[in-house]
């Protein structure tokens, strides 16, 4: 920071930063003991610890079905958002200044309105198409939320690809498909993967669209968690939370490795 601060102040400042980061992380760590409750109530520190609720969740068809629906819709939503986001990003980067700003505005619009508005729009769409309760329309609605994020991430990466690289590819006789698959795609792969992962997470965590479109046979994991917290509040929610958090942990680490590798490759190419 600013030179000439006293050492005591700097220590205090660092201490405060660690305090805030602790504030962010400790509640998530608290999930672990909560999930080992021996009874039907959720407490912060159960005694004795018991894996009973892990068994209960693993053998529950309801939780498993909810997870299945979530995986299905989130996978489709991520695929739709990443593909559409790529086309949108390419168009933004390629279009002239005027068209680019308008297109960018349009692409970002699902993120600028409150989520409940997107949810209501999807509900209205599903009703008017006669597809209420269909998982595919749920996936489309969820992909709308991820689309702006995907487009922004991929556009940032496409802007980083210098025109001369593509010119070189064309002047050496590459077809459009070859230029895409052998130059543009590998160079933006880390952004495409990040976009796919993030849009998957956004769709996986989405609650309101899923609530609006839910039927007894179509309940995603967030809907199941929401109802469980609202009406029962059993340690099963803590178990699911631990599993989700563990998965996310693995995802964040994997993403970090991809980013580092991409940065290293870029550095090596220079």
């Amino acid at each position, binding site marked *: 920071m600013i030179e000439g601060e006293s050492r005591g102040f700097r220590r205090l400042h660092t201490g405060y930063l660690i305090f805030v980061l602790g504030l962010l992380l400790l509640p998530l760590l608290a999930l672990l003991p909560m999930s080992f409750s021996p009874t039907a109530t959720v*407490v912060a520190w159960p005694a004795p610890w018991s894996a009973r609720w892990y068994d209960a969740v693993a053998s529950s068809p309801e939780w498993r079905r909810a997870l299945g629906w979530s995986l299905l819709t989130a996978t489709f939503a991520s695929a739709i958002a990443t593909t559409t986001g790529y086309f949108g990003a390419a168009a933004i980067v390629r279009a002239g200044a005027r068209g680019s700003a308008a297109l960018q505005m349009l692409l970002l619009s699902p993120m600028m309105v409150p989520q409940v508005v997107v949810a209501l729009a999807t509900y209205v769409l599903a009703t008017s198409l006669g597809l209420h309760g269909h998982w595919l329309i749920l996936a489309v609605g969820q992909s709308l939320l991820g689309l702006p994020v995907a487009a922004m991430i991929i556009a940032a990466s496409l802007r980083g690809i210098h025109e001369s690289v593509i010119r070189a590819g064309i002047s050496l006789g590459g077809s459009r498909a070859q230029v895409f698959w052998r130059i543009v795609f590998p160079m933006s792969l880390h952004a495409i993967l990040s976009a796919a992962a993030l849009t998957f997470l956004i769709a996986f965590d989405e609650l309101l669209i899923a609530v609006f479109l839910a039927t007894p046979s179509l309940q995603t994991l967030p809907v199941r968690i929401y109802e469980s917290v609202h009406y029962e509040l059993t340690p099963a929610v803590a178990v699911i939370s631990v599993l989700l*958090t563990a998965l996310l942990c693995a995802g964040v680490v994997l993403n970090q490795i991809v980013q580092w590798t991409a940065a290293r490759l870029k550095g090596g190419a220079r």
Partner: protein
Amino acid sequence: MPSELASGPARRIGGLSRDYLGMWLVLAFLSLFFLYPLARILVLSLSEEGQFSLGVYARLLGEPTTREVLLQTIRTSLTVSLICALVAYPAATRLASLSGWQATLCNLAILFPFLTSSLVRTFVFIVLLGRRGIVNQALEFLGVPGGPYKLLFNQVGVVIGMSYVLLPYMLLSLVGSMKRIDPALLRAARSLGASPFTVFRTVYLPLSLPGLAAGFVITTILGFGYFVTPALMGGPGDMMIAQLVEQQISVTYNLAAAAALAVIMIVVVAAAYAVASRWLGLSRLMRPDS
């Protein structure tokens, strides 16, 4: 992308340049799945028995409950943003000055809760803030009188829970703008004889204000539309507007009222964006760290 890819008559198929195919695809996708239903929402809210009418709005805003919910929502989102700003600013100034593995570690510490399901984060706070929860036990242990406090199913719970959920947005926005402050300016001010505090007050703080404002706008807009935390942590008297929309759909089946509420939400949010972008620029709001 270069112009070579966009030009040349040989690349035209069916009257459409292939480069614009992607753009048309995006436009068609958004028009069909987003703009069309939005237009239907607008029409739904503005008509009664097939006729143009403002009746839905008049009835909705005539009810004291709706007005109260709207005011309550705005008040809560502003309070939460203020708390986030106060907690995050001092931490962000330190975080922005870190580099290397320390910066990476701290960023991961923010990114991780940021990406964790908001349902999961709300659930944790429901357990921690309960009557026999760890927070009340800690307060009792520290000898704070008047406990156990009611921290759940009321306004206090909603504000604590939402501040926790939205804090990472504020931190990311602040750190993004603080990292762009040129350290040479700070050194120059120091070498001209300013004390560290004067440098902070006259150079650092003004340069970090756009990031603070962007973070404030983002958290306020997100807080305004928030559903999960108020729905699970609020009491019956602290309903927020997103809950009201959900109620109109799932409980009272009043699609026109839900549509009108959605239009009101869009108008409020658009006004917030318009006011903010006069000073900040919209691109800055959407991408605080670029």
